[in-house]
């Protein structure tokens, strides 16, 4: 009897603990809602301009965007970068490579001279597309086997598959110039829809820099010294101040439509040599995020 009472009292105490614990959890649900401040509700999209520069890079083929998610601490990333370079040799102008330095693999330390190639949008894309273990590649931001990321060993096969199956919906013609007087890059685009497109599209204008020398960890002697390459050359590095997810076309565009847009991009102060920069423009399906066309142009002064 005494034991029974003791057990009942113990159980009640336990129950009370459970109730209090649950009551403690309740406010967590309330705070788990986002509050957008007034000045963030409608964000002005800077960089759209009426200023133009002549179109010099025209496009008439379906191109493929390979995003190489990488970081200086990623010991297998030199292998992936070498693969990307090899694929450029194979596919030529049909392939556009963009190196997105992201995740903890790209965070700066004194041992890499605090060089930080990360960008705000690169970090977001890494999360959105599940690029947590590097190297990881995205090909036209298309899911393959339920995931966006593709290992560098399969890049070639997937690029081939994309080139042979991707419907050629549009072309992007480009002009770009560095405006030294106000330290901005002026980009003009002509987006020619070759077929009816039933969904809205967005345009992304980014700057890549090549030929940057720095520190890279490495585990394979085929690609340089191990465990570290002191004078590694970083190419196609995605830089800051890109214009991401800007509106290009409404819900439906008919065949033959040309949408011309012009942008002014603030030059990223980390850029070391503007002459080694290219402007990459890619258009995505607003709903799926899939890349439907990409083009690049080397920057002229």
């Amino acid at each position: 009897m005494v034991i029974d009472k003791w057990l009942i009292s113990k159980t009640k105490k336990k129950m009370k603990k459970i109730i209090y614990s649950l009551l403690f959890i309740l406010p967590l649900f309330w705070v788990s809602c986002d509050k957008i401040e007034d000045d963030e509700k409608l964000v002005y999209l800077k960089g759209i301009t009426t200023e133009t520069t002549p179109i010099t890079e025209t496009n008439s083929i379906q191109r493929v965007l390979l995003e190489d998610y990488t970081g200086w601490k990623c010991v297998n990333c030199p292998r992936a970068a070498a693969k990307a370079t090899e694929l450029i040799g194979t596919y030529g102008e049909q392939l556009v490579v963009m190196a997105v330095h992201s995740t903890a693999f790209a965070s700066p330390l004194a041992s890499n001279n605090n060089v930080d190639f990360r960008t705000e949008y690169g970090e977001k894309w890494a999360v959105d597309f599940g690029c947590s273990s590097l190297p990881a590649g995205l090909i036209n931001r298309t899911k393959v086997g339920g995931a966006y990321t593709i290992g560098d060993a399969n890049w070639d096969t997937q690029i081939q598959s994309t080139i042979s199956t991707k419907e050629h919906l549009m072309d992007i013609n480009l002009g770009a110039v560095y405006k030294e007087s106000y330290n901005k890059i002026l980009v003009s685009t002509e987006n020619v829809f070759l077929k009816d497109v039933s969904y809205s599209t967005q345009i992304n204008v980014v700057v890549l820099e090549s030929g940057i020398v720095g520190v890279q960890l490495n585990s394979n002697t085929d690609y340089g010294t191990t465990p570290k390459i002191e004078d590694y050359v970083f190419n196609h590095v995605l830089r800051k101040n890109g214009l991401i997810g800007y509106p290009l076309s409404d819900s439906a565009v008919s065949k033959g439509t040309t949408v011309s847009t012009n942008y002014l991009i603030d030059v990223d102060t980390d850029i070391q040599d503007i002459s080694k920069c290219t402007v990459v423009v890619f258009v995505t399906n607003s709903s799926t995020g899939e890349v439907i066309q990409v083009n690049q142009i080397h920057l002229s002064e």
Partner: protein
Amino acid sequence: MKKIILIISFVAFSINSYSQGLFGGKVTGNFQMDVQASREDSVIGAEKVNEKMLMNAFTNILYTNGDFSAGMRFEAYLNPILGFDSQYKGAGLAYRFASYKKDFLEITAGNYYEQFGNGLIFRSYEEKNLGLDNAMDGLKVIARPMEGVAIKGIIGKQRYYWEDVWASDDFGLVRGIDGEVSLNSVIKSFSSSPLQVTLGGSFVSVYDKADTRFIIDQQTGNNYKLTTPENIGSGAARIQMSYNAWNLNAEYARKGQDPNAVNGYIFHEGEAAYVSAGYSAKGLGINVAAKRIDNMSYKSRRSETGNMLNINYLPALTRQHAYSLFAMYPYATQVNGEMGIQADIMYKLKKKTFLGGEYGTDLKLNYSRAMSIDKQLVATNPAGSYEGTNGYTSSFFKVGDDIYFEEINLEISKKISHDFKLNFMYSYQTFNPIAIGHEGEEFVYANVFAADVTQKMNKNSLRYELQLLLTEQNYGEWATGNWIQGTLEYNLGGRWFAAASDQWNYGNETGEKTHYYNFSIGYTKGTNRIQISYGKQREGIICIGGVCRMVPASNGLFATITSSF
């Protein structure tokens, strides 16, 4: 196909095992099939049905064994009958779950329906007549740690036709917790009090991945991007009280910023209040209810505008009518803003009195009114619209200028003799077409009458029904002018029945004075029932609990089979 074979095997096995008792448990189930064959009829606007025959069907199978239960529902829309969304086309396992109770916990995995309080911030339910099913798919835990205390936790995604909601980020993840405490159970000194008090509170949050929307100022060419919150939270508190014949049910809910397609992508926070008070004694029942809804469309996908993916339910405060002409101008809940009241009085005139007569008389008086809420618009965005702004401010107690719906109706039910029973009903309705999205159309004012006599003839019965709708207004193509409806229904021993009815739009001054005749015959044995009808169905709107769907016109056969075991 493999799935179908598996399901058929399961059903067959379950039925076969029923008589033996499956592992000592019990198998129950039900079935319904609706078949429609409609032909083109330009007079009533019935469109050609390419398939010639359409069918909706479902079967529920439930296995229970002590504290364990598991079940499934197989649904088939081959192809969906008229008025149901074509996205239902197909067949498959739409609902499956397993649940068990152990000590103070009850765990459910798979699909489930649930409601927090009055449903202001969370209600998962299905309404087959509306083609509405927002069943959750995920996990539910109910803890009853002590008598009078219940805590519910839910997580999952909602059904969207046949879509694999887990394969896409397009469908939001719903999380919620609800707690309810009966003070009479928890406080010992309060346990025998005639005053019964139950307190409750709930929180719900939906994770809906941000999507991209732009606003373009056409004059300057400037572009703006809308920032959408990804976690949209809501909370509610409620109280239920009863004291002898009196009862009170009140709930207040708030919803955080939720710019969505229904509210025009504004950031105004949502709010809902509901209060219902009643008195019930022998021969008298009184209930008065009021509500205020302000921007409370709450869906697990911000771009959704239809009946699917609703997280919450906003109770309707109007009478649900069974007579078809009374339901011609239905009430639809205004999720973006509405204030409503309803009063019900039920009184029974005693037997053997002057007014009550030999058998007594039942009187039901109902009044309801739905109005807009006060809205003071804020400054527009640079493009001249309200998208991306707070939209408006609203004073809680201030009623808006627009009336959406108003009705007063009286129903008298009287048994005249041993063999005759009379039901009479009258309603005066004011209907604003804007309430179902038709802005700028004239109000409809309608007087509606119904007289319904049931005559018993030994084991058989005969029912005569006459309805009349009088209005000077014409609303759309399906509700023009005056209507009259007559119905004759013969019931043979509770097994067979035959009915004939005609709904005649005799007051239509702009089009055909169409007769919508209908003949039906049915047979019931035990829990099985078969009914076949032939006739014309007018285009209209069906609303249940303030949620509505369009019913297109049809002309042809309609058959229904229902069964349960």
